C-alpha cells in the first residue's frame, strides 16, 4: 500500500493548477479529494510522476442559484451537495444521490469535480448528472468551455477533458418539480453500485441514466422514448438495457445485470411517477 515515488505541487488557483499541469505534461494528475486516485496509486495501478494538488483552491467550492440551473464548484464535497438546501429544493435527485456515494469519510473528502472527471461508470454522480442533462465547465490554457454531459463520457475512465484542462463547475438544470428516483443496488452500503438508476419524470418527458451498465454512464433513451410514445412503465422498463453493454464481474453476470437494470428502472419510474 505504498505508492511509487511522485512529486507533489500545490496550486492556489485554477489558473495556477492549469499552468502546473501544462508544465509537467502527461505524467501529471490533478489531486482533489483523492478518493479515486490515491487507492489506485497505493495499488500501483496508477503511477503519476507529479500530483498537482487542487484541494485548497477554495473559490471552487460553492453551490449557487444561477437562474435556470444550479452551479456547483468542482471542489464542492459530496457532503455539501448532499446537505445543500438549494439542491434539495431545486435538484433533489442530485442531493439524494450524493448521500449514497461511498461512506461518510468518502463524502467528506470526495469532490463533485473529481468524481465527474474520473468518469467511472460505476460512480453515482456521473450518471445522475447525465440523467439531469447537466453541463460541465472546463478551464484550459486558452479559457473555458462548456461540455454537455451527454458528450463528456467517451470510454472507461475517459472523458472529453484535454490533458491540460481542469473541470471547474457542474451546472445542473433545476428539476421544476419533476418526480424522481435513485436506485442503487449493492451488497454493502459503501460499495459502488452493481447497477444503479437515476431517473426523473415530468409531464410526458423522462430522463433515465444507468450506473455500471457499460464502459461509461449511459442514458436509457429507449425507455424515455417508449414512455413518450405511451408505453406503460413496465413495458418501457423492459427496454432498460437496450443501449447498455454491461460487463460481468464478481457481483453479477451480464444476464443478471441486465435483469437488474430492468427491475430497477421499473421501480425508479414507478417511484418517480408517484
Amino acid at each position, binding site marked *: 500500500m505504498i505508492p511509487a*515515488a511522485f512529486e507533489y505541487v500545490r496550486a492556489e488557483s485554477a489558473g495556477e493548477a492549469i499552468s502546473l499541469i501544462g508544465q509537467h505534461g502527461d505524467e501529471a494528475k490533478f489531486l482533489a479529494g483523492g478518493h479515486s486516485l490515491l487507492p489506485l496509486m497505493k495499488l500501483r495501478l496508477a503511477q503519476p510522476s507529479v500530483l498537482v494538488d487542487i484541494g485548497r483552491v477554495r473559490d471552487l467550492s460553492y453551490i449557487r442559484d444561477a437562474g435556470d440551473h444550479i452551479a456547483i464548484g468542482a471542489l464542492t464535497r459530496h457532503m455539501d451537495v448532499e446537505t445543500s438546501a438549494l439542491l434539495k429544493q431545486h435538484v433533489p435527485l442530485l442531493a439524494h444521490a450524493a448521500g449514497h456515494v461511498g461512506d461518510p469519510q468518502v463524502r467528506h473528502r470526495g469532490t463533485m469535480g473529481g468524481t465527474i472527471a474520473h468518469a467511472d461508470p460505476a460512480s453515482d454522480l456521473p450518471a445522475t448528472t447525465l440523467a439531469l442533462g447537466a453541463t460541465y465547465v472546463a478551464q484550459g490554457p486558452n479559457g473555458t468551455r462548456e461540455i454537455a454531459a451527454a458528450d463528456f463520457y467517451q470510454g472507461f475512465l475517459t472523458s472529453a477533458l484535454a490533458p491540460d484542462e481542469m473541470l471547474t463547475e457542474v451546472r445542473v438544470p433545476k428539476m421544476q418539480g419533476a418526480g424522481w428516483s435513485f436506485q442503487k443496488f449493492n*451488497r454493502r452500503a459503501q*460499495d459502488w453500485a452493481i447497477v444503479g438508476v437515476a431517473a426523473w419524470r415530468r409531464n410526458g418527458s423522462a430522463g433515465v441514466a444507468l450506473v455500471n451498465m457499460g464502459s461509461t454512464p449511459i442514458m436509457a433513451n429507449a425507455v424515455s422514448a417508449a414512455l413518450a410514445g405511451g408505453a406503460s412503465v413496465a413495458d418501457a422498463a423492459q427496454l432498460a438495457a437496450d443501449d447498455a453493454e454491461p460487463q460481468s464481474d464478481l*457481483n453479477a453476470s451480464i444476464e443478471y445485470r441486465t435483469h*437488474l437494470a430492468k427491475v430497477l428502472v421499473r421501480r425508479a419510474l414507478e417511484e418517480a411517477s408517484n
Partner: protein
Amino acid sequence: MTVTDDRPAGVLGSRLLRREDPALLTGEAKYTNDLHLPGALHLALVRSPHAHARIVSIDLSAAKAAAGVVAAYTGAELAGLWAAPMPCAWPVTADMKNPAHFPVATTKVAYVGDAVAVVLATSETAARDAVELVDVRYDKLPAVIDLEDALSDRVVIHDELGTNKSYKWDLKIEGHEGAIDQAFAAAAHTVKERYVQQRLLPMAMEPRAVAAVPQPFGGDMTLYSATQVPHILKVMTALTLGIPEHQMRVVCPAVGGGFGSKLNVYAEELLCVALARKHKLPVRWNEERGENAHATIHGRGQIQDMELAADADGRITAVRVRILGDMGAYLQLVTPGIPLLGAFLYAGVYDIPLYDFSCTSVFTTMTPTDAYRGAGRPEATYAIERAVDALADKMGIDPMELRKRNFIRKEQFPYTAMTGLVYDSGDHLAAAQMAAGLADYDGVRARQATQNVPGAKKRLGIGQASYFEMCGLAPSRVLASLNYSAGGWEAATVRVLPTNKIQVVTGTSPHGQGHETSWSMIVADKLGVSPDDVDVLHSDTAIAPLGLDTYGSRSLPVGGVAIAIACDKVIDKAKKIAAHQLEANEDDLEFAGGTFSVKGTPERSMPLAAIAFEAFTAHNLPDGLEPNLEAHVTYDPPNFSWPFGTHICTVEIDVETGQVEVLQYVAVDDCGNQVNPLIVEGQVHGGVIQGLAQALFEEAVYDTEGNLKNASLAEYLVPAASDVPGLTLGHTITPSPTNQLGVKGIGEAGTIGAAPAVINAVVDALSGLGVTSVPMPASPHNVWKAIQAAQNGASK
C-alpha cells in the same frame, strides 16, 4: 433475558468496562509496527504472480543496485539458514503427505503469493520499490483450484509426493460400520446433501507485522510479532532455525485481531529472525492488505457430503459424513487438523446412535488454509443443521419440531456420545425455547402463511441453528489421540506483592479478547481485592510461564481456571501464615472479603494485606514455610468445554433481485457462568457477524488460472456496521461441571451458530418456489440464480 443463577452479586459476573479499551480506542496502544527500532532493515518479499510454475531464473542485480538496498536473496541463497522445513504440528495420520515447505521457494511455486526472493533495505519504501526491479522468469504450469480435480491427480502439484492427496482420516467406531448401512437401508426417511464451505479470508484488522532484534552479544534474539501464539512461535522458531530455545524470546505487542490467522508460524517471522542473525541488525516487515489476502492463511474450504437416516417419527438414527478438505498449497501449523476439529460434531446437539465420518484432504494451488474462527466446528454445525432442515422439509414437518424430537435431553448429561467424548452439560430445549420466544417463531410462521403467497414480491423466511461446540482445547491426552503435537494445558502464576497488589502472569495471549479485564476479575473475586489492584502480565515469553497461548476458545476454561486454582493455592498458604500469627487452628479460619478471621471470633482477624507483608519480610512464618505469597499452577483440564445454544434468523428476500434482508437475528448462547457479560456479548456480536458474513457476503474467489480475484477490501466484502442487523441476545446459564468456575468458551460460538441459521432462513423463504438449497455466500446473484433454476426446473 438471562436465566440467572443464585450466586451472590460481586465482581464476577459484573459488566466491568474493559481496561484494555482506553488505549485501543485512543490509538495509544502500541502494535508491532509502532516499535521504534533505529537502524532496522526492512524486509520485502518478491511473490509469485503465478499459481503453479517452475522458477527458471531470478535476476536480483537491478534490485541490489537500487538506492537503499542492503541485500537481496533468492530462496536457494537462503537455503542454508533453515535447520528444518516450516512446521506442521498436526500430522493427523502416520502416512500423511507433507511437502517440505521453506520460507522462500527454490524450484517451484505453488500459489499466487508464494515467495521466491527477498530484499532488505534501509526503508520500507526502498524495499518495496526494489521488489519491482527483481526479474523472475517462470515456466507456468496448470493451476489446480477444484478439489475433485485435485483428488484426480490430473496435475500433481508436489512432484516428490506423486499425488495431491495429503491424507484420509476416518473416525472408526467399533460396531458402527455394518450397523450404519443397515440403518440407512431400514430408514423411513433419508437425506443426502452436498454443502460447500467456501474459502474465507480472515482479515484481521491489523495485518501481520514482525520485527526481529538480535542482542549485540551472546546470540540472544527477540522476535516481536503480531501473533496469537508467542509460546508456540518461540519453540518453532528455535527448532526451524537451529537456535537454542533459551536464546529465543517472543513478545507480542498489542495485536489487532487474529481469528486464527495469527495462530501460525509464518515465513516472514522465520525470515526476519534468520536475516537479523545474518546481518546482526534488527529486521522488520509489515504486511500490506493485499499481501495479507495472499500470504496469510485462509479459512474453511471443504466439500461436505452429508447423509442422515431417520425413522418414521423423524428420530435420526445415523449420520454419514464424507469431507473433501482443501489444504491449499502447503501444510501450515495445524492445517490438516482443522477438519478433524469438527469430526466429532456432525451429530450436533442430537441423540444419534450411529456415526460414520471420513475426511480426505488434498493440496491445491491456492494459499494454505488453516484455523479460522470456529475451525472445523462451524463447518460441522452447518452440515448437520442444514441437513436437519432438509429432513424436516422432506418429512413436511416444522424444523423446530424435528429438532425437539432429537435433542439430547437435559437429564442425559453428562452425555457420552457414540464418538466416546463426554458432553459436560447442556439444555438444548431451554435454549431453543428461549430463542423461539425472542424471535416470535410462531408469529413469523403465521406471517409467512399470509405473505409467502404465489407471486409474492418479498418472501419471509425463518431459520434455526442449534449448536454444540467442542472447545477449550483441551485434555492433553485427547489431543494426543488426535496426533496433535502439543498439550492442552495452561499455566498461571499469581503473585501477591508486599503491598497487597497482585501480579498475574498467564500463558494465554490476548489479541482483542479482554483477558486483562477478565483475569483481574477472577483474582479480585478470589482474593477479595479490587480488580484495579490486579496487574495481568502476558504475551512475552521472558516473563510468562510456559504457556500455550490463545485459540480454540480455550483461554477462560483453561487459562482462567488455572488462575483460579493458583488463587486457591495462595489462599492456602496465606491461611497457614494467618493461623500461625493468630495462634489459631487453620480449620478454624475462614476467608472472606480479603480477610482471615477465626470462626465465631471475628475480631481475631488478619487481612491479606498484612499477610502479604509478613510473607515478604519472612520474620515470623511457620516453621518450614517458604517466604513470599506466590503460587504457580499448570492446569490440564479433564474435558473440553461444551458451550451450546440456538440462533434464529428471520429474513425477507426480494424475489426479483435475490437480495436478502435480515429482519431479526436472535442468538441464545450458553457458555456456563459468565465472568463478564459485557465481554461475552462482545464475543457473540463479533462471532455472529463473522458467521453471517460467511452466509451472505464473503468468499475468496479464484479464477481458473489460480488468481485470487478479490484480494482488496473493495472487493472482498467484509460487512460494515451499516450492512448487518442489530442482534437480540439471550443467555441460558448451565455451568460446566468440569471446572470450578463453571465456565465454557465463548469466542467462536457466534460464528458457529450464524451461518446455518441464516442459510436455513434463506432456503425457508424460498421453499415455496421450489428452492431447496442456496450456496454460500447467499449473494443477490446466487439467490437469484437459485430462484431461476428452481423456476426453470418447475416449468420443464
